């Protein structure tokens, strides 16, 4: 278990938007320069606060997509239907704008090189975001911990970081597995269904390998994956979960 963070005040900070990359029709990555940024751990998140002209404010939490070693802070935000903050971040925010944030927040759903492996990462939809930080951290620290990623998306259009994931997959230490739950690309021979026990048995390490497991995604996805892994004999104390509330 990670050493607990020392008490400290987390102040609101202003970051400069220096880059915006569309990841899919619904998501984009925001690159921020944040003067005085306190280095985060892979897997942590930040609070973002928007302020209207009349002083009205709205706050939400977003996972950090970049590695601790990166000098910039990157957030990948998915536009949620009926959202208040996410449509602004995906559609309205421009380079040169400033964005108010505070963090990093959360100390449990994190992976550091010292925690070792083997590592099993299971993502549903935008639940891949903190794993991009973890995978980059894994590469930048030249960690020898073997990693297996299982990433479930609805359609090829929903796949975030596709080129980067393919590059990770060329590493001997990282095994990338995708499953498409609604529509697979033409000629796809991989998984094309929701995660189930058989898929996890094929992708996951054996419980006797004692993998450190991280699961991130919508609540129902996380519940299903965690229940299946516990039923298969994995140690509940080595399963860490992050459930996206689906509001925002």
């Amino acid at each position: 278990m990670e050493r607990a963070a020392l008490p400290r005040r987390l102040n609101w900070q202003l970051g400069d938007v220096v880059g915006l990359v569309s990841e899919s029709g619904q998501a984009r990555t925001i690159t921020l320069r944040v003067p005085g940024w306190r280095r985060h751990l892979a897997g942590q998140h930040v609070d973002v606060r928007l302020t209207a002209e009349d002083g009205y404010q709205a706050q939400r939490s977003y996972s950090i997509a970049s590695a601790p070693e990166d000098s910039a802070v990157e957030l990948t935000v998915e536009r949620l239907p009926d959202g208040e903050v996410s449509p602004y971040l995906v559609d309205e925010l421009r380079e040169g704008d400033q964005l108010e944030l505070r963090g990093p927040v959360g100390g449990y759903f994190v992976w550091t090189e010292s925690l070792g492996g083997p590592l099993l990462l299971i993502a549903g939809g935008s639940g891949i975001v903190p794993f991009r930080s973890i995978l980059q951290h894994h590469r930048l620290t030249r960690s020898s911990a073997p990693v297996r990623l299982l990433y479930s998306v609805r359609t090829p259009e929903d796949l975030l970081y596709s080129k980067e994931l393919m590059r990770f997959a060329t590493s001997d230490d990282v095994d990338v597995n995708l499953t498409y739950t609604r529509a697979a690309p033409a000629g796809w021979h991989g998984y094309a269904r929701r995660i189930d026990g058989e898929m996890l048995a094929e992708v996951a390490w054996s419980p006797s390998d004692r993998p450190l497991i991280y699961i991130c995604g919508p609540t129902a996805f996380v519940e299903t994956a965690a229940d299946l892994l516990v039923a298969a004999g994995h140690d509940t104390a080595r399963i860490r979960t992050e459930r996206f509330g689906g509001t925002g």
Partner: protein
Amino acid sequence: MTPASRGFLGRRQTDVDPARVPAGQYVTAGFPVLSAGPTPRTALDRWTFTIRGADFEPVSWTWHELLALPAEELTTDIHCVTKWSKLDTAWTGVPIDTLLAGIDTAATYALAFCDGGYTTNVPLADLTGGKAWIAHGYGGASLPPEHGGPARLLVPHLYFWKSAKWVRGLELGSEDVPGFWERYGYHNYGDPWKEQRYHGD
């Protein structure tokens, strides 16, 4: 002074009483689930709730004994540190006052412990005087596992991580021992009306 976010209009919630929504929160109709690990499943015939401490004999209730205690129906608002609030949630639970009635202790703090290893700390004064319950019902039905069933601590005047899911007991003492999230940078007390989300807030 926070500068305005260019082009942000916001979507003010006009159908809720702003006096019921703490700063930085928004009201949701859903009931999001947040937990650090898998949802534990403990068989009810092996379930107990225990109150223990250094200066009294521990007291335990089985599941059936807990259900046999007089329960209250209450409707209250809840506030999660991840920004959502949910108004008018309806619970069934046994008041902590009832469970503490036979215990004579000088303790001033409680550490709730749970299946799955989760803990959270609350001053004992925040659990007494009709402010906290062991809730075993939600919305007129039994409490679903993903929301902390079979029973969770319910302390609605604090951020909802203090309302520990899958609660199995309280450790009472004279020392304030930080719980799970409190050791990961979250506020030790967690008053939503003072926006005490993180250490130093």
